[in-house]
């Protein structure tokens, strides 16, 4: 029998919503829903909220796909997945929500820069795999020069690093993000980046790209009248931890 103290202490309701109860717990909780109008109301609204968020993610994924032809193959791959693999889809949908830019194009570009064009860049076919294992690093809200430094310690087990750059205000439809080193050399530049639903620009970098050192990330708005500075973030990449 499921009691309210147990529901509260073991966070049964929230775990139920995301399918994290054992079969036995789930059966007991669902039986409890027939006896408790209060829990039924809570779980019903929780379910609506969860569906709503997923629908937002799906819509954003569709929007990103419409503007990013490189994702077409990826979405076709997704459509072939079974409902049981929804977690993978959900993870990717989240990635698409925070990835309005064309990650694959960025990866090709980054690869070319890193290798100094000595080796051919990987084909989009090779890259058209879902990236689900990444480290998300929030760089906070970008403001003018002189902002505090964000430290990042790369995780060698992650394939990519997603830098999340929140804009203080959105004055332009498109932005340019430039990653430079301490000496002022441009290491990478992303053009025409569109802020996502949360006024945030996301830059995806292969984990191996960021070697220890200090970097400067400059954000500029691309408006009809020209380029306007939008802010700057300083990033310090620490050496990977041993072991």
């Amino acid at each position: 029998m499921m009691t309210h103290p147990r529901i509260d202490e073991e966070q049964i309701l929230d775990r139920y919503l995301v399918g994290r109860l054992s079969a036995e717990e789930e059966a007991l909780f669902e039986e409890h829903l027939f006896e408790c109008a209060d829990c039924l109301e809570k779980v019903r609204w929780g379910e609506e909220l969860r569906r709503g968020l997923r629908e937002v993610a799906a819509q954003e994924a569709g929007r990103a796909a419409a503007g990013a032809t490189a994702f077409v193959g990826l979405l076709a791959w997704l459509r072939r997945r079974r409902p049981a693999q929804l977690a993978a889809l959900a993870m990717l949908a989240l990635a698409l929500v925070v990835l309005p830019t064309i990650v694959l194009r960025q990866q090709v570009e980054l690869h070319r820069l890193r290798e100094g064009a000595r080796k051919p860049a990987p084909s989009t076919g090779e890259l058209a795999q879902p990236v689900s294992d990444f480290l998300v690093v929030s760089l906070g809200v970008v403001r003018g020069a002189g902002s505090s430094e964000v430290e990042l310690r790369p995780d060698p087990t992650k394939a990519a690093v997603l830098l999340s750059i929140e804009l203080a205000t959105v004055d332009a439809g498109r932005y340019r993000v430039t990653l430079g080193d301490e000496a002022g050399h441009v290491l990478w530049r992303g053009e025409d980046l569109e802020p996502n639903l949360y006024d945030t620009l996301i830059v995806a970098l292969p984990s191996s790209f960021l070697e220890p050192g200090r970097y400067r990330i400059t954000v500029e708005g691309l408006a009809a009248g020209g380029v306007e500075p939008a802010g700057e973030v300083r990033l310090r990449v620490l050496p990977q931890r041993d072991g």
Partner: protein
Amino acid sequence: MSTLEPATAADLVRRIAAGEAGAEAELAESYGGALRFLARRYTREEADAEDLYQGTLMLALEKIRRNEVRDPERLGNFLRALAKNLSTTQYRRRRYAAELPVADPPDAPDRSRPDPLTALLRTERAQVARDLLAELGVSRDREVLLRYYIAEESAHRICADLDIGTDHFYRVLHRARQRFRRLWEEHAKSTPGPDRESEARKR
């Protein structure tokens, strides 16, 4: 919505089996809310959920009339098990039908597209969720919601990453649920319509 004590549940089973007038309606009234919720959870489309709900109720009444309820005091558990089994059967039938090399008749519903009610509810639900996300001033709270409900990351991992306690984490979820409900109700008031009203009646 009312709920029944175990002894009352057993009494209701007895009265339905005895053919007492009104007892069947009482079953739907007392257990319909939870049953409808579970039917929706076990299916992907609103229309399938309604089929499952109706099918479960009919089968339950048949079994009660035939005295096939082993534990009448746990009527909720009985209804839940029936709904679960029926949903599995419904899914298998649909999958089997999809594998048959027979062309659908021209007027057959297109199962690859959501039915109009589902599509409408999805749009509205997404709008309310967008409003909720826009209202959340603290970006960390948005991240909690997205990572828990969409990415399905564990609470433990999210709390560790964001350096927040589990109390705060569950408070964010609790507040978001309440706020979502209020926004939905405000949204419903501003956009009345026959579909919305029928849906609201089912709630």
